[in-house]
């Protein structure tokens, strides 16, 4: 049985790796060799692919492992995922729409381009670039550790975390190296579709197995009534934690580096609107369905604790159809590369366009920069694999810090929504947020300070500073304000409900 399980794991992973490699090779064939083509697919990504690539980079294996484990362990508290997903359609549109338009108009390809150009400050753009690299690259390393650990778990320890990271990360690097964003988008398309089908099928399966919604909840009350409310059986989901998750994952997540990249890569505003439309219903409803899967598992395979709960699907199928369980989880694990490939390309883009191009202007032509970007995918993969040897606590800190990029939320909001925002205020906001986040972490306050996530303290403080300092300092030139806000008011904001704002 052990051999057949391992055979199944290697078979599924092997088939998957061949498919994504073919996609990478095919994407490379039509490549023009420019940075726009490599990092943004020449800004020609359609609505359906945009939707699936948004979805896949957001879900990955987390849906069938992490989210299932979350519902299994915490019960109702995990519904915070449904809550924050219901905000995505709105935030992706009101922030992603203007970002898309400005990207097309000015040729921006990273958040640093937008901030540096609008505030007429190469220094601020440089600081943004450094910040994004500092927050994103370690997070990429953490993802490699996670995928290696998942491989280790599914193979019952036969394949070590490091070897797992080398196999999956290596192939991921291969197709990103070859095809850039086209590879990422097309693999995400298949991965996103796969997750949707599996997640919905499992949800309905468990509803059917338990005899419907009411029967499922009745059984759940008998199993553990604490699952039905906040803070849950082990007291994790306090109201502060709940609020922190809602805030960090809703508005602030709309400026995640990978979301930004997708807004730039989308072919038109109309396609972006369609992608936002489908995101608005598909993400929250998929979590509702996943809740039924997890609660079904809680009833059929009780007693799993900690990270074991993330293997609940595997435990369930082990008693019924082991090979099917291995197939589902192995495929989910392999498809978690959809998060890694997005981050790998984003990090490579930041290092190339925000690092090399920004700090060494004119030294390399566009095609050379593309080669450098490809080279960075290899270097980043090697660094990430080396980081899999680090302690897990270090990785958790890195993961939390990733959301530090949310301190850019206010300067970005200024560029698309509030002409009064200023360069000085942006500097003050970024420095204040980063200082508070670093202080709270380094001074040992823990992840939750007075029940609120430490990143949120930094980001909200930065927002207050941005607003107050803006009122007393000089905004960008009238010409720049007109080029940004005048343009957006004409082309975006006035298009809502037909009434014209600009006369």
């Amino acid at each position, binding site marked *: 049985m052990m051999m057949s399980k391992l055979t199944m794991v290697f078979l599924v992973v092997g088939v998957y790796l061949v498919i994504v490699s073919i996609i990478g090779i095919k994407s490379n064939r039509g490549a023009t060799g420019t940075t726009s083509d490599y990092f943004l697919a020449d800004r020609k990504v359609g609505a359906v692919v945009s939707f699936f690539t948004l979805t896949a980079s957001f879900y990955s294996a987390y849906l069938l492992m992490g989210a299932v484990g979350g519902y299994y362990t915490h019960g*109702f508290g995990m*519904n915070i995922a*449904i*809550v924050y*997903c*219901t*905000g995505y*359609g*709105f*935030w992706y*549109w009101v922030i992603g729409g203007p970002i*898309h*338009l400005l990207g*097309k108009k000015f040729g921006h390809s990273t958040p640093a381009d937008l901030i540096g150009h609008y505030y007429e400050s190469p220094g601020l753009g440089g600081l943004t670039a450094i910040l994004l690299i500092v927050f994103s690259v370690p997070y990429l390393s953490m993802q490699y550790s996670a995928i290696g650990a998942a491989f280790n778990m599914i193979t019952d320890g036969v394949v070590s975390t490091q070897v797992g990271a080398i196999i999956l990360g290596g192939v991921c690097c291969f197709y990103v190296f070859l095809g850039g964003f086209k590879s990422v988008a097309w693999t995400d398309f298949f991965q996103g579709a796969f997750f949707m089908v599996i997640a919905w099928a499992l949800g309905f399966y468990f509803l059917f197995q338990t005899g*419907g*919604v*009411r029967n499922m*909840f009745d059984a759940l*009350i008998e199993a553990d*009534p604490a699952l*039905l*409310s*906040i803070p849950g059986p082990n007291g994790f989901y306090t*109201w502060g934690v*709940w*609020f922190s998750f*809602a805030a960090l994952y809703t508005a602030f997540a709309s400026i995640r580096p990978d979301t930004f990249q997708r807004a730039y890569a989308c072919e*038109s*505003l*109309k396609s972006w*609107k369609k992608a*936002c*439309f489908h995101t*608005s*219903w598909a993400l*929250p409803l998929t979590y*509702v369905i996943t809740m039924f899967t997890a609660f079904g598992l809680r009833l059929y395979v009780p007693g799993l604790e900690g990270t074991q709960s993330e293997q609940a699907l595997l435990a369930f199928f082990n008693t019924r159809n082991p090979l099917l369980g291995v197939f589902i989880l192995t495929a989910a694990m392999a498809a978690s590369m959809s998060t890694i490939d997005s981050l790998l390309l984003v990090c490579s883009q930041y290092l190339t366009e925000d690092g090399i191009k920004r700090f060494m202007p004119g030294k390399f032509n566009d095609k050379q920069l593309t080669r450098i970007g490809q080279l960075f995918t290899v270097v980043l993969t090697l660094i990430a694999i080396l980081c899999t040897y680090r302690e897990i606590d270090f990785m958790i800190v890195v993961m939390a810090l990733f959301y530090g990029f949310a301190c850019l939320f206010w300067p970005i909001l200024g560029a*698309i*929504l*509030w*002409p*009064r925002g200023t360069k000085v205020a942006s500097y003050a906001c970024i420095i204040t947020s980063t200082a508070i986040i670093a202080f709270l972490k380094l001074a040992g306050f823990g992840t939750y300070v007075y029940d609120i996530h430490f990143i949120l303290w930094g980001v909200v403080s930065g927002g207050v500073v941005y607003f107050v300092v803006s009122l007393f300092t000089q*905004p960008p030139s*009238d010409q720049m*304000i*007109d080029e940004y*806000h*005048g343009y*957006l*008011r004409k*082309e975006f*904001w*006035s*298009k*809502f*409900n*037909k*009434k014209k*704002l*600009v006369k």
Partner: protein
Amino acid sequence: MKKSDNRKTSLPKTPFGVATVVFFCLIWWLLNNKPVMQFFDNMVKDGDVVWLLGMPINFTYIIGVAVLSIIWTIIMLAKWEVGDDDE
């Protein structure tokens, strides 16, 4: 763009536009957080569960708010006019 507009936000000023901003930036947060959510959450504690539509009421409530948010987003997007090509 008039210079006097430089101090204002660019948010939509139509009634539905204002309502949408108020909903997602204020009401959505109130509906999904402690004051209101806790009210429904307390109705399923201590083994005394209030049911609605086959689920404990806090589950029904959260799915209900989700459906409201989704419908609002869809209407908002439907009312937002964009051309075929923005190039």
